């Protein structure tokens, strides 16, 4: 046992590719499952959320315009870099969620594998969800899935890493950019994930991770006119209706929260990809 004094990490936001503190200067105490001190996390403010939307909008053109192959490689790279930090993630998940080391390892394994699953989807969505439409006339007509735009994600509150990856990765795989409010009580794996994303060739601003309170930040994101869709996975149960009503103001796509947090280890299917995809249909006449 070394008697070296550890260098502790400052847990900050991940915003526009950088790691700032909250502009509000606020932090809150994060404890482990038994109540022991883990860290002071930045408590993101309304202004941070708005800055994150600006960053996500600015990054949308680059990310949605990248080739599907390129996006797939970047998402696969996320899995590679996570693998290198496996032990750190296990430690943070075990502490925050109060899991045994083997169950924490299973959650981290599944989270890494989830990136691999979605990495493989990027260049198949067009073929699986789109296609040529046999219209009754001399036209070539085809439909393709395209990303919806900027997606605000209220990440699951219990599953701090696997749940987070399960809602974030499909948003990115479709070519969207994201503003994520992480689990309030268990934010530390999310910050570490931000460090992974920052070193995985993901352009800055594509993912913005805000540690803080979904109940506080949710309404600002739900009513923000430059947000195209909201995933209410981690919304407080008694606030979901209010958030959905706010989202109606600019006709946002809304994914409602489940009655209770699901088992994120289940096969994800396409259920979290398609809500954040639009179908574009193009017509052109055929003629000599």
């Amino acid at each position, binding site marked *: 046992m070394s008697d070296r004094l550890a260098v502790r990490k400052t847990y900050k936001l991940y915003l526009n590719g950088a790691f700032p503190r909250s502009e509000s200067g606020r932090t809150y105490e994060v404890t482990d499952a038994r109540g022991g001190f883990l860290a002071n996390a930045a408590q993101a403010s309304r202004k941070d959320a708005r800055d994150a939307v600006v960053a996500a909008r600015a990054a949308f053109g680059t990310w949605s315009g990248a080739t599907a192959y390129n996006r797939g490689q970047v998402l696969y790279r996320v899995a590679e870099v996570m693998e290198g930090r496996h032990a750190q993630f296990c430690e943070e998940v075990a502490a925050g969620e109060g899991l045994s080391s083997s169950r924490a390892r299973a959650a981290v394994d599944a989270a890494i594998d989830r990136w691999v699953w979605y990495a493989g989807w990027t260049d198949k969505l067009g073929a699986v969800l789109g296609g040529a439409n046999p219209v009754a006339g001399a036209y070539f007509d085809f*439909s393709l899935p395209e990303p919806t735009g900027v997606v605000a994600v209220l990440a699951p509150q219990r599953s701090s890493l696997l749940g987070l990856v399960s809602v974030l990765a499909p948003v990115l795989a479709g070519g969207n950019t994201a503003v994520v409010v992480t689990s309030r009580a268990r934010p530390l794996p999310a910050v570490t994930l931000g460090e992974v994303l920052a070193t995985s060739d993901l352009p800055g601003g594509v993912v913005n991770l805000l540690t803080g309170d979904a109940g506080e930040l949710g309404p600002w994101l739900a009513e923000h006119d430059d947000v195209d869709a909201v995933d209410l996975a981690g919304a407080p149960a008694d606030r979901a*209706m209010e958030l959905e*009503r706010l989202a109606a103001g600019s*006709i946002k796509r809304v994914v409602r929260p489940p009655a209770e947090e699901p088992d994120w280890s289940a096969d994800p*299917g396409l259920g979290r990809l398609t809500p954040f995809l639009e179908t574009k*249909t*193009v017509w*052109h*006449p055929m003629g000599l």
Partner: protein
Amino acid sequence: MTNPFQYAPAPESRSIVDVAPSHGLFVDGEFVDGTGTPFKTVNPATEEVLSEIACASDADVDRAVKAARRAFTRTWGPMRPADRGKYLFRIARLLQERAREFAVLESLDNGKPIRESRDVDVPLAAAHFFYHAGWADKLDWAGLGPGPRPLGVAGQVIPWNFPLLMLAWKVAPALATGNTVVLKPAETTPLTALLFAEVCRQADLPPGVVNIVTGAGETGRAVVEHADVDKVAFTGSTEVGRSIARAVAGTRKRLTLELGGKAANIVFDDAPVDQAVEGIVQGIFSNQGHVCCAGSRLLVQENVHDEVIASLQRRIGTLRLGDPLDKNTDIGAINSAEQLARIRELVDVGEAEGAHRWQPACELPDRGFWFPPTVFTEVSPAHRIARDEVFGPVLSVLTFRTPDEAVAKANNTTYGLSAGVWTEKGSRILAVTDRLRAGVVWANTFNKFDPTSPFGGYKQSGYGREGGRQGLAAYLEGAQ
């Protein structure tokens, strides 16, 4: 100079339709009285009252939803999918058999030219039923995930611009996927929906599978807010769409919205001008511009602006406005006094804000609701006529110099329903369509529709698709 080639009147006979002096609701397979205050539907071309229409109260809507639920549980839900399909094939055939009757009735009630109701609305409505009939027993192969199941009762609210066609877009996929329907047609255009109810009876469709409740906004609200409705589908204005999204928030109801638009129709300098002009005219003046995907913003490359506008004005000068039942008519009546007032207001605003209004010499009939085709030039992107949906025969012309500027201007709208691109260069078509944030992009054509081709918007033009494999998802539980 007088035109030596004058058109003689060529009116389609209205004797094929027999409009009853009053109409009831269609609930549980029967025509029944409504308990709301009846209202009148008029011919917008003459202001003649066509019929008195029952108004469905909350209690009437409740009866319709109960009938739909019963039919879902007892007949339509348990039915073999192939048999559901056969009913839809029957409906498609009946629509074709009675096509002329539907076309004349649609033009009478809506004001659209018979050329369009006869050649577009009614054939496409039949095609939608025929297309979806085939899906009924093939849903496992639709690629929407394993074991898709119907949702239950669909509450559907449709607009007045394509009354029968929008009915088909809503009813055909709902029934093909095993749902039952309570449909509210628009207040000003209920007649073809009620004739469709007769078709359902001729097809021996089991009672309660399709219910039609006529009325105004209150009836629509009752349909949307009914607790036993599983799915809400709405086509109409973004404003009403917002209020529906709010009403549905926090419930288990699924929602799809097809809302307004302010489509850019982009003409590059290498486009064949004559073809583009036809497309521009088709894009904004068909159906009097009462089209959510109308090409209402013409973006023309600066160096061909004068040539395109001159050609466009020459072409508009040949359009014939008048009796919707005349087979030579290009532009029919504005659907209602209310809509006419809105068009006039926005046109006044356009002039007041500094755009230049042009209209052809065009005689308007003395009675009825009419507005001449109108072109605004010198429009700036900040003008209301460049931002607000007019939903009338009013075109706003803006210019651009580079493809980047064209795309930026085209996307500078809260809407995202449709767009048009005119150029001879294939690579430019693909690059520009790729960057347009719109659900349907017509390249070197405009306003084309087909049941196999999904239609619907980006951004505040709504969500969900109608038509194609993609359109089925809106009516299926577990569809991914």
